[in-house]
């Protein structure tokens, strides 16, 4: 094991191997403190960042944080690494890579440089460089990278901000779900996906919700995709029974053990993707997968111990989940950044930082990143923090965010963004919905000539009929 040493103000700090160094170089995070891998002082953290800056990027190919032999995510990362794509940055250290990225990001052809680089980067390289970046660095690099995906509309184009309309209901009541869908559509939401977290995992209920959403979408000819976020195996069975599945959803983590705790294996995801592709339901593209991630999931499953049994920091593990996601060319990936609780991200500052890290790292790896800008009631955060994170993400070109009626998710018991918040971000920053969805909003009279969402009387809108669920 390489021992890294760094002297700072006359004190020499030592770091036992790359796993320890990555963890100690991470900005302060309650989850790393819980895991026992965080720096114990600000000075030790600064020393770790100095030492990490000198590590060569190629080191991460030779020294995985989780063992190659026992972790299938590591095998995927290493086996899929594209040496030719890596060539432009192969000789750089982590610190030099930050400088290089920021220089590229300032160039007009940044996207043309960063897109072909993505297959040459591993999650660990990207996690490492993000630890040296400030929030504005994360924003600049994320905005410069470009990732567009498509199914019935196009996500990720410059100048656009899409939303997942999340019409959750505590008992999966069809009328209640439909009412929330109407509320969201009237406020210009739903272009990334109309996606429900069902309260039950009963396949029959999931099938009913899939039919409900598909009926609404097709009746009003809405150029979007729908999804019921249930386990991949349930979706696979339902597809085989002919249920109207647009997107295959799954929560994923950055370690084999973390995925096992979700009941997921890589082969399952590949199989489900094949079946969904064969349904041929996309119109402008055929990206059929939707993944959710979030810092802390591996630790929460006790599946965070890496080489030599050392705890791997939660941000590095999160980026490894993106390494898994990109294998399946998803339409959407979102980090549910503040969902798990303050034991992983303590307050608004940690949530905002983590949201920007996740977005930037996913984008650099070539993923269509979105963020559930959110928090729980036992975290030290409030809606002002969500406003800040939303505006930072939107300014940095995030593909989509999640929105629920009034920011209050009554099924999962946490706060996300309100549909109104997305309207504010679009108007403050001059952003528009996905193009196909924007055209639809104009066609049905919801959007005015300047692209703003009209204040209309819903009882006079044809859309109100979508709540007439039998």
């Amino acid at each position, binding site marked *: 094991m390489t021992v890294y040493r760094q002297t700072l103000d006359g004190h020499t700090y030592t770091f036992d191997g790359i796993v320890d160094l990555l963890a100690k170089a991470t900005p302060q995070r309650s989850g790393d403190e*819980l895991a026992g891998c965080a720096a114990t002082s600000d000075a030790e953290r600064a020393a770790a960042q100095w030492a990490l800056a000198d590590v060569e990027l190629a080191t991460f190919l030779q020294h995985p944080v989780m063992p190659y032999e026992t972790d299938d995510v590591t095998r995927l990362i290493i086996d899929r690494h594209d040496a030719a794509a890596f060539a432009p940055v192969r000789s750089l250290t982590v610190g030099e890579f930050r400088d290089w990225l920021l220089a590229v990001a300032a160039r007009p052809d940044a996207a043309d440089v960063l897109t072909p680089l993505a297959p040459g980067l591993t999650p660990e390289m990207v996690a490492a460089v993000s630890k040296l970046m400030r929030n504005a660095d994360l924003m600049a690099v994320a905005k410069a990278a470009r990732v567009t995906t498509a199914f019935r509309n196009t996500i990720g184009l410059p100048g656009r901000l899409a939303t997942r309309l999340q019409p959750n*209901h*505590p008992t999966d009541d069809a*009328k*209640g779900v439909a*009412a929330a869908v109407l509320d969201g559509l009237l406020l210009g939401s739903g272009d990334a996906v109309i996606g429900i977290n069902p309260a039950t995992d009963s396949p029959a209920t999931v099938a009913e919700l899939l039919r409900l959403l598909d009926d609404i979408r097709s009746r009003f000819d809405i150029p979007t995709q729908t999804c019921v976020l249930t386990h991949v195996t349930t979706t696979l069975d339902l597809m085989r029974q002919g249920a109207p599945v647009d997107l295959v959803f799954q929560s994923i983590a950055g370690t084999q053990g973390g995925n096992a705790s979700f009941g997921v294996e890589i082969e399952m995801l590949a199989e489900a993707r094949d079946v969904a592709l064969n349904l041929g339901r996309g119109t402008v593209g055929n990206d059929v997968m939707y993944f959710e991630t979030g810092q802390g999931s591996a630790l929460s499953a006790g599946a965070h111990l890496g080489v030599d049994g050392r705890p791997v920091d939660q941000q590095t593990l999160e980026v490894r989940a993106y390494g898994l996601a990109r294998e399946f060319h998803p339409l959407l990936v979102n980090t549910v950044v503040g969902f798990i609780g303050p034991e992983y991200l303590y307050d608004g500052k940690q949530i905002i930082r983590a949201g920007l890290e996740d977005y930037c790292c996913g984008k650099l790896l070539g993923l269509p990143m979105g963020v559930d800008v959110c928090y729980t*009631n036992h975290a030290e955060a409030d809606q002002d923090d969500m406003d800040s994170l939303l505006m930072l993400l939107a300014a940095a070109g995030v593909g989509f965010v999640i929105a629920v*009626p009034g*920011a209050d998710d009554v099924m999962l018991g946490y706060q996300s963004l309100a549909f109104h918040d997305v309207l504010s971000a679009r108007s403050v920053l001059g952003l528009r919905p996905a193009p196909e969805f924007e055209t639809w909003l104009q066609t049905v009279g919801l959007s005015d000539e300047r692209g703003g969402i009209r204040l209309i009387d*819903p009882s006079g809108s044809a859309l109100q009929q979508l709540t007439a669920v039998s």
Partner: protein
Amino acid sequence: MSTTPETTGPPTGPDFWTRLRETTPSRIGLARTGDAITTRHLLEFRSAHAAARDAVHEPLDVAALTEQVTALGLGDPVTVASRAAGRSEYLRRPDFGRHPADLGPLDDVPRGRDIAVVLADGLSPRALSEHGAPLVGAIVEALGDRWSIAPPVIATQARVALGDHIGAALEVGTLIVVIGERPGLSVADSLGVYLTQGPRVGLTDADRNCVSNIHPPGGLSYAQAARVVAGLVEGARALGRSGVALKDTSRAAVEAAERSALD
């Protein structure tokens, strides 16, 4: 003439959203001012958030709860604290919340009873204060007199798995942990019940059965929840274990209980 013509937009049928709100507790149809929600909705949201946060941070009134629980006649309750020294540490260190600071208070509690009940503050001490004693009363009633029950234990700064230490120390067959759930904006006083057969240190969530959303009048009633818990106790004791393997047995037991309740 209105001085704020953009506040609510064109006239909306007064019952339009009212009718739809009967179908969901979601905050649908919030009036707009520009792109934002109106002041009234903003303040309603902040009030709900404040209530939820207060529910997390208000300390449990142990004396008042002890008095209520004593009245159940199960013996004098004792209190066990977790290793988490205060609320801030509790929130950051779930591992501390799962370990007792000191099991000494259990020294005089009789060992080897069939069932022990732990009343844990969890993330909503208010839920425990409001619903804890009546729920335990309902559970005891639903269990009938077939089982011996240990004197109740009140646990502070507690996570669910703290109960495993208590149950193991008391050498009980079945452990029932009643705990305050993470408050949402709509409900800040919801209780959950976790049942473990053969409690011992090191069990995981896969070894427990959970009944959640107990908060009358909006959620499960005490009697409904108690019936489900009693069914789970029957199932767990018949099966000799709890958790994933218990589901079908308990469902059958609960359905049987509900049928007999209808008779």
